[in-house]
């Protein structure tokens, strides 16, 4: 599969399963739409989040090895770095017998959430800019 598509699919699944970790799909009726019941299954979406995280990490490592850090761009490298590190702490925390202090847990969770939101925002901005760029030559004509 094309490498960019691995990244897009991993990020899309991470976004949906990540939002599903918050109690919103049930409250806002998404889970009662036929075929969407799974969005309110915390354990299922948690496993989905892990599977997509594995895919992202696979892609990231391959990309960094083949293209070097420059291939990602500095902003994305930073955001993904924070996302991956805080995510890794959360994965470790969930293992039996691994406990961090409540303050650490809270700060890591908030940072993970903030990094995810920043990445989502950056992706939207980039899309908007691309659209504007695509339109620019037409407008000039």
């Amino acid at each position, binding site marked *: 599969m094309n490498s960019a598509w691995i990244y897009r699919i991993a990020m899309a699944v991470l976004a949906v399963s990540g939002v599903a970790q918050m109690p919103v799909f049930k409250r806002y009726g998404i889970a009662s739409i036929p075929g969407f019941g799974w969005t309110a299954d915390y*354990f299922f979406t*948690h*496993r989905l989040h892990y599977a997509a995280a594995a895919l992202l990490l696979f892609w990231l490592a391959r990309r960094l090895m083949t293209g070097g850090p420059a291939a990602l761009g500095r902003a994305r490298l930073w955001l993904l770095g924070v996302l991956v590190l805080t995510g890794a702490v959360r994965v470790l925390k*969930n293992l*039996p*017998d691994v406990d*961090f*202090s409540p303050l650490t*847990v809270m700060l890591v969770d908030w940072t993970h959430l903030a990094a995810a939101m920043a990445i989502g925002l950056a992706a939207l901005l980039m899309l908007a800019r691309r659209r504007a760029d695509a339109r620019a030559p037409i407008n000039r004509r």
Partner: protein
Amino acid sequence: MFKHIAPNSRITRRTLLKTLGLGGTAALLPDRARAAALPASGGETATLLDLSKCIGCGACVQTCREVNASRYPDPVKPLPTLLPPGTRNEDFSDKRGDDTRLTPYNWLFIQSARVDGKEVHIPRRCMHCQNPPCANLCPWGAASKRESGTVSIDAEVCLGGAKCRDVCPWQIPQRQSGVGLYLHILPTMAGNGVMFKCDRCQDRVATGQLPACVEACPQSVQSVGPRNELAAAARRMARERGGYIYGLEENGGTNTIYYSPVPFEKLEAAVAKGPGKPHLASVADSMADSNTLAWAVLLAPLAGAASALLKGTKRILASREAKGGSHE
């Protein structure tokens, strides 16, 4: 390496971080509770409840209510109107006296049942799971588990989404609307109060005291100590007195261990269950599947690196072949 850190093995945080080359990270993440509630021998603290001794007097429940009364919620009224329509508030503030179930105002209650001609009373509260889904899956970092084995929810931080109750095999945490952080964020659109449950009197324990319910019991039903010692004691009791144990394996192991003179299947069939009245059925480890997948997550970067190397090798081989071909 992987033999050392099999998903189900019991390893300390330090061993794991060291194995993963993160020893330095461990130093940055101190568990401030460590000194407080950890027994000198290290490891998790558990409580063992000998149900053959409990007379159901309720002194433990009464004490829990008195000692923790200052931490009970005091909601603002009227409670916020929630969106979307149909989202309900949960309000126990008019039922503060109810001690027949778990509520935000009652973190311990006595379940009773008559089995095999014996009257059995079971003090029920949070089980303090060894690998608690409530704390692991809290998306907001409000619930956490200490190295001491205590699982607590920070009332200042909790948004009341009740995910902890949904993922708890016993639906222990109880919600009170109209209190907490959500009132200052998006009170109508997100959050719905604060979740409350037993935190093993961590403030008392931090000052060297015993949990209030343990101290108040006239029958000395509960013992407190290192989990491995109490687990061994429970097994010995079961062997010598022919009783039954609950909590050693439940949800991957809990730090609340019940010893009963009658089988738990019979107690489970006999006790009243429902909201705030947890069951006594056996429970599989709810984190097991995620923790198996965790190894895929931790190994994925290696697989990615290997695939990059493979790609590079293939390219070199291909270019060599091409060069070889051009010589001909």
